[in-house]
């Protein structure tokens, strides 16, 4: 009953005209960046982070959340019609989605993708409403030791799931922690690694780092390769899937939704892993696995449902524990902090309007996305024809503006250019930026909780293993760290490894 009252309260906030407008802007921009290859939700959210300052916290966070789940919808359009993933979570959709489009079934592919996403997104929201408050009440009992161990686990999971060498991913995570520690020490107020620059006293900004690594770095990489586009030019008709399509897709949507939701909650997991896992599951369960890769609708329905459910699930660790499970949620944490709010176990009780308002806005956003994605498909197709040599100068312009507006400081533009160059070379040499960014955000929190727990336990390291939750997190982290040494587990890791930066 309480949940119902809270949901009604949430709708009261989400249905305010200004919040509906912000929600619409968020899902529209999300779909736009999802559709456009070479710019993803991370760049768009960093760009708009400063804009959220002009409104209330509810409006700003509603818009940022809209960009995230909107991009999950939009990414599938590019995958199906152009065979280029609009964002990383839609990589798998290219395989069967584009084949369907080539066979003249682009309509049902786009339709099942949008409807499956809607179903999964709605399920994830219901679960978010039911799980988050109970988890938040448990999380109140978490001490610094639990938080420190949970963050270690989150970083290890992400490095485990990152493509390529795990040693490289761990090195990136360590560099991220070091970068996060630049500035004044939160306990002793001693400046660290500031090199006498006054601009670094407050630390390095998240926006220039993310925009550099993901925005500019990606542009530099894309300009050196000729992006080949194989756009489906035929008129797209019959967007609604027929009875046969629904029959084939119902199971994959259901399984993808549940799998995606739970993978979304896991620290370090997220939409990308969920879509890959769902595709693998459907192929394994299918009586005709040979159809996969040749236009099987199950290969579109399952992963699309999974990535949307994961996008909803990812809000749980952020809202209840204050720990972002992936880079996108790290940016959302930034939005909370900008507004003077700290997500965590107390957020739901101290700021019920904010939490339930965001949840309710996500329902509204899901409906808006269904409206945006199906009837406006022609507009998105036209947008896809925008050549990259026109698009990339605009992306660079918006990254510069976004970075400057986040701090009103030209120094951050230098930082962004610097990290853009670093991001380009990192990708060239097989170093993924995602662990660096997550560690950059978690680094100061990890240090704070680690030092607090050592002070509280008077230097007794057993505090990390005597507490059951902390011990469980550390055991899991150790298992994942030694897993790549075992050949069977290494093969499994390579199968699910992801390229989060894509």
């Amino acid at each position: 009953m309480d949940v119902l009252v809270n949901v009604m309260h949430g709708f009261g906030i989400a249905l305010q005209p200004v919040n509906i407008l912000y929600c619409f802007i968020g899902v529209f921009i999300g779909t736009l960046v999802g559709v456009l290859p070479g710019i993803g939700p991370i760049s768009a959210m960093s760009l708009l982070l400063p804009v959220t300052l002009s409104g209330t916290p509810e409006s700003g966070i509603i818009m940022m959340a809209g960009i995230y789940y909107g991009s999950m919808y939009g990414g599938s359009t590019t995958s199906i019609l152009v065979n280029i993933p609009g964002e990383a979570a839609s990589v798998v959709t290219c395989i069967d989605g584009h084949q369907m489009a080539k066979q003249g079934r682009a309509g049902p592919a786009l339709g099942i993708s949008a409807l499956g996403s809607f179903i999964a997104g709605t399920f994830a929201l219901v679960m978010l409403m039911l799980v988050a408050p109970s988890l938040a009440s448990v999380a109140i009992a978490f001490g610094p030791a639990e938080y420190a161990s949970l963050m270690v686990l989150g970083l290890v999971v992400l490095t485990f799931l990152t493509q390529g060498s795990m040693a490289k991913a761990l090195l990136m995570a360590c560099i991220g922690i070091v970068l996060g520690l630049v500035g004044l020490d939160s306990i002793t107020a001693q400046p660290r690694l500031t090199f006498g620059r006054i601009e670094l006293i407050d630390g390095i900004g998240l926006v220039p780092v993310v925009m550099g690594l993901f925005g500019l770095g990606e542009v530099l990489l894309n300009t050196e390769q000729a992006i080949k586009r194989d756009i489906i030019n035929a008129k797209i008709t019959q967007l609604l899937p027929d009875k046969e399509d629904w029959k084939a897709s119902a199971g994959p949507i259901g399984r993808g939704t549940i799998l995606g939701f739970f993978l979304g909650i896991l620290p370090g997991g997220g939409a990308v892993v969920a879509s890959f896992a769902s595709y693998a599951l459907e192929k394994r369960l299918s009586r005709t696995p040979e159809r996969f890769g040749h236009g099987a609708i199950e290969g579109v329905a399952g992963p699309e449902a999974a990535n949307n459910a994961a996008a909803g699930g990812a809000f749980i660790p952020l809202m209840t524990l204050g720990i972002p499970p992936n880079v996108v949620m790290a940016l959302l944490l930034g939005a909370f902090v900008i507004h003077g709010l700290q997500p965590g176990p107390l957020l739901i009780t101290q700021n019920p309007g904010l939490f339930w308002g965001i949840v309710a806005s996500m329902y509204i956003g899901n409906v808006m996305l269904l409206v945006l994605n199906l009837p406006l498909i022609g507009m998105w197709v036209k947008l896809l024809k925008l050549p990259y040599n026109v698009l990339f100068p605009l992306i660079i312009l918006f990254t510069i503006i976004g970075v400057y507006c986040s701090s009103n400081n030209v120094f951050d533009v230098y930082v962004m250019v610097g990290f853009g160059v670093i991001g380009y070379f990192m990708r060239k040499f097989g170093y993924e930026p995602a662990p660096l960014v997550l560690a950059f955000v978690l680094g100061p929190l990890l240090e704070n909780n680690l030092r607090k727990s050592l002070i509280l336990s008077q230097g007794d390291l057993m505090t990390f293993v005597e507490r059951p939750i902390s011990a469980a997190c550390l055991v899991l982290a150790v298992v994942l760290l030694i897993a790549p040494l075992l050949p069977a587990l290494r093969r499994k890791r390579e199968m699910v490894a992801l390229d989060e930066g894509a």
Partner: protein
Amino acid sequence: MTDQTRPPFRLNNSELWTGVIGIALGVFVIRSGLKLKLGTINDPGSGFMLFYIGLLMCAFAVTIVLASITEGGPTFGSRWEGASWSKPVAIIVILSAYAFALEPLGFLISTIPLMLLLLRVIDPVRWTLAIPLAVLAPLSVWWVLKHALLIQLPSGMFEIG
């Protein structure tokens, strides 16, 4: 791995050098941690975390170096095979020059040439599209930020914008 299957040691192995850079960074972080004081385990100091993270960085970088020696790795040249590396280099040079010109010249005076260079130098767009886009995009962004969001972009020594 036996001696017969082990790849020959090559100095232009890119993995080896990225590992060496990792070790150098790790050593720098360890030194910074030591300078800031480690404190005690009961009361960790400002350099405590940096010191141990530096040690971990060295350990992971050494693993990368060892793997590059035992398993080999791509050369620097092969990383850019089939890619036109001059384009990212040109963008980096243009952006670096822009970053330094932004404050003294102001947003509008520096961004319009930046856009024109990006549109014409990297992968040339026809003049009839490049000029209006290079002028209108920065102008409209400046107008929206200044008048709608009340955000002041650098106006430079000429105080334009």
